[in-house]
Each structure stands twice: as C-alpha cells, then as structure tokens.
C-alpha cells in the first residue's frame, strides 16, 4: 500500500472514531465491575438490544430523520432493561451470604447472554436488519467519511462527556465514586449500595446499548452482533486494566488506532489480529494493564 500523508491522517481519524465507540463498550464493563464487583458477560447482548430497539424505532416508528431520537430511546430502553434485570439476577449475590460470588456472577450473566440471544432469534429470526440512514457523506477536509460513522463517534463523545459530568458533579456520581472505592464504608456512611448497584449496572449496560444503536446502520442488527463488541470490550479491559476508567478510554482509542493503522498499512484481512497483538504486548510489559493497579483477589 502506498504511503501518503492524507492516507495516514484518514487512517488515524477513522481509528480514533471507532476507538471512541470501543471505549464506550469497555467503559460499561469496567464501570459495572468497579461498583458491583462483577464481570457482566452479557454485555454484548445489551449492545444487541440497543441495536434492535434502534432498528424498530427507525424502521417502524420514526423514520431515518429521527435517528437521534431513536438513539435516545434505545439507550433509555437498555438502561431500563438493566435496572430491572440487576435486582433479579445480580442482587441475590449481596442480599444473602454467598460462598462463591464470582462463580455465581459468571454463571448467571452467561445464562443471561444465552437467554437474550435466544429471545432475539425467537422474536426477529436469524435475519440481518439494517436501520435506514440518510446521513450524507461528510468531508473532513479533503477526506470523505460515512455520515453514520461520524454521527456515531460524535454521539459517543457526547455520551462520554455526560458520563463524566454525572460522575464528577452529581450526588449519585459522588456516591458511585465512594462505593467503587470502599463498599462497606459507603454502606456505613448511609449509602444504599444495593440500590446503587442497580443504577450502576443500568448505566453500564446503557453504554453498550448506546454503542449498539449508534453502530446499527454500519454493522447490522442480528442476534449475535454483540459478540464482536464484547470481545473488543474485554481486549480493552486487558489493555487498560480492569476497573480503570482512564484505562477504558485510552485503551479504546489505542485499539481503534492500532486496528486502523494495521488495516491500512499492513493488510486488511487481519483487522482483528492487530488488537490481539496489542493485548499480548501489554500483557508482556504490564500484566495488570496500562492503568491496572492491583491484581484481583482470589
């Protein structure tokens, strides 16, 4: 492949644009882990739910002009799903004494993954859908970019900004930061951590739902479309460090960049391999991830 400055710039821009969406996915995983101390293996299925709601909303209800309203509905819908599911499946882990919490969480969230996938097949069949988009090609300088892709990245940046505001400036954000640091101390300070768990779980899965809604016109809507998103999310967690919010953000951008550069300048069929090379490299140099502080107990 010929090297040109234009190609390099375009590659970097598209890498960062997809990286923001990867970061959203990873942030959801890391955020849930930091509060609920549980890895949600069904994260990709909430991505899938978001994409289906987006398709239904755009195709049957609102039309492509109101794609942004559909995105808000999809995000709110996945938030609500998380808020309802958490007290049923995750809360029992803390509400009564349990011997092997990690095992329980793993089994329960994998069961949830299978349930949600099967539901998608039962309702929508194994077909691929694609919500219409009429966003025009956008020219970043001399470089053309798909409108839906630019819109997706822009919305993801806005969502990350909103998340930051909630965490830094609101009372819920303060309670979340305190609980992430010390659950027991937060509880004895009067914070209702069991209810906060549901909020945190819902915020985390809503990030996946938002990513699914934004990427639906680009990567299609089908029952297993969350699998790739989950894999990317966990690659980033390994790169950035579990439980680290900056790690999720920077890891996401880094993965987007590496994939984009590799695809453009080395060979495009190996797009997914570049990320794994990055993972292996990070594991050799910093086994806890770039921002990981401590090894998880037991």
């Amino acid at each position, binding site marked *: 492949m010929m090297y040109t400055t234009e190609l390099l710039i375009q590659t970097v821009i598209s890498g960062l644009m997809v990286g923001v969406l990867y970061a959203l996915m990873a942030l959801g995983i890391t955020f849930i882990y930091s509060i609920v101390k549980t890895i949600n293996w069904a994260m990709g299925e909430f991505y899938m739910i978001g994409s289906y709601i987006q398709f239904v909303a755009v195709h049957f209800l609102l039309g492509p002009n109101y794609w942004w309203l559909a995105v808000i509905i999809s995000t709110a819908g996945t938030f609500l799903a998380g808020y309802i599911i958490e007290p049923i499946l995750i809360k029992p882990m803390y509400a009564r004494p349990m011997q092997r919490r990690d095992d329980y969480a793993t089994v329960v969230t994998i069961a949830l993954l299978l349930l949600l996938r099967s539901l998608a097949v039962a309702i929508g069949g194994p077909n691929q859908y694609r919500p219409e988009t009429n966003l025009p090609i956008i020219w970043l300088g001399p470089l053309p970019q798909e409108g839906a892709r630019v819109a997706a990245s822009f919305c993801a940046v806005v969502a990350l900004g909103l998340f930051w505001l909630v965490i830094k400036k609101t*009372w819920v954000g*303060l*309670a979340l*930061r*305190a609980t992430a*640091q*010390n659950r*027991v*101390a*937060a*509880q*004895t*300070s*009067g*914070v*209702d*951590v069991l209810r906060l768990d549901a909020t945190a779980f819902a915020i985390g899965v809503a990030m996946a739902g938002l990513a699914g809604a934004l990427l639906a016109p680009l990567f299609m809507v089908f029952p297993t479309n969350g699998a790739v998103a989950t894999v990317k999310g966990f690659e980033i967690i390994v790169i950035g460090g579990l439980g680290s919010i900056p790690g999720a953000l920077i890891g996401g951008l880094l993965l987007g960049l590496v994939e984009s550069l590799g695809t453009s300048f080395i060979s495009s069929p190996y797009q997914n391999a570049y990320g794994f090379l990055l993972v292996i490299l990070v594991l050799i140099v910093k086994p806890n991830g770039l921002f990981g502080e401590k090894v998880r107990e037991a």
Partner: protein
Amino acid sequence: MTAAGSKRGTALIALGLTKHYGGLVANNDVGMRLTSGEVRGLIGPNGAGKTTFVNLVTGVEVPDAGSVRLGDREITGQEPHLIAEAGLVRSFQMARVFGNLTATENLMIPYFASGAREGAAVGVARARELLRLSALEPLADAPANSLSGGQRMLLQTCAGFMIPHLRVYVLDEPFAGINSVVKDTLIDLIMHENSSRGITFLIVSHEMEIIRRMCPLVTVMIAGRVAAEGTLDEVAAREDVITAYLGRTAA
C-alpha cells in the same frame, strides 16, 4: 439549637443482646441504656465483646437475640444505612475514609445519603464548619489519602456529624494511635457537638485519662457481659474489674 439535656429522655436502649460465633459467645445478654445528651464510656479488656456490641447496635451484624431501640424506634437487625438514616451512626477503629475523594467530598457523602433536604449549599457550609473545628480547613479540597492517620480519624468522626438528624454517635476506639494534639482537637470537637446539638455519645476506648475527662458514667464489659456501671473511679475500684484487667495471678 435545643440545649443539651433539657429533656432527659432515653436516646438508646439495648436489651438482652446475644451473639455467638460458633461456640464462642461474644455477647451474652448485654443491655445498656443511654440518656439523651450523655457521653458514656465503654471499657473492658481486649476480647470483652465491646466491638461486637457496637456492631450489633449499629446494624453491622445481626444479633442472635435481643433488641435495640433508638428513641421509640425499633432498629434491631436493620440495614446499617437505615439505622444511620434514623440517626444512629458509628465510627470504626481503622479510619474508613475514601482516599480518592477530597475531605469535603468525604463529608458530603453521609450528608446526601441521609436524605438531607436542605440542599448542597447547606451541606458544604456544614462541612466547612466541621473542617474548621477539626483544624482540617486547609486540606478541605485535598484528597483524603494525603491526610495523616489522626487527621483521617478526625475526618471520619466529622462524617458522622454531617447527618442532620444525628442523635446517637458510637465511636469505636477514636483515640487509638493518634498524637496528643489531634486527640485534644477530637475531644473538643466531640464536646462541642455534644453541647451545641445535644448528641449522645458512646465512646469505646482504652484511654482511661480521656474517659475520665469526658464520661461521667462508664460501662464495663468483661467476657461478653456487662460487669459494672458507674463513674470510672467507682468501677475501677471493683474487685472483678481489677481481676479482669490484670488477670487472676497478678491480682
């Protein structure tokens, strides 16, 4: 502010609290009554069950038998955050502060969590006042992990004072391992909140000089039971208390 003790009701009453850990009886039929506005000391040799008693009263652990009432409200076995909301809070032997949050943010957590209705501005003003009383004002916006051990204990104690309708405050070994300057600041802070807000205190401590200064009445626990109650000098003169502290062979 209502004057302390203008009406000497019962702030807290614990009856027949019992807790087993396997074969060990950590608390055996322990009872205590705190009068509104008093500062009570709770002393006893190591392993006497003082911390277990504190845990049972404040909801950290659920008793096997017995009951706890805060004012006229039954709180036995409730979740700690509900008990805190009702106005009974505790501090821990090891200061539990949120190291990544600033001193002010640390204080805002119990304020908001207790369902304060007066808004953030009132809470921030209250936090400033407490930080001033604890000589922590210059560190108000510093992360709590930059504080010394004694300063953390002050901050942790202040966190309880942030609850607007605080009635009973249980302090578990607040003076352990902190220097004498911080000790005096902490004593002044406690006495200030006692006289200005009429808050009732139960102070678990081994520091007899401080207990003598602060607590007109002390309760002595020995081997999971209440062994004596009275002024420090009265209980310190009792044969069974001396034996428990010094051991049978030494006595």
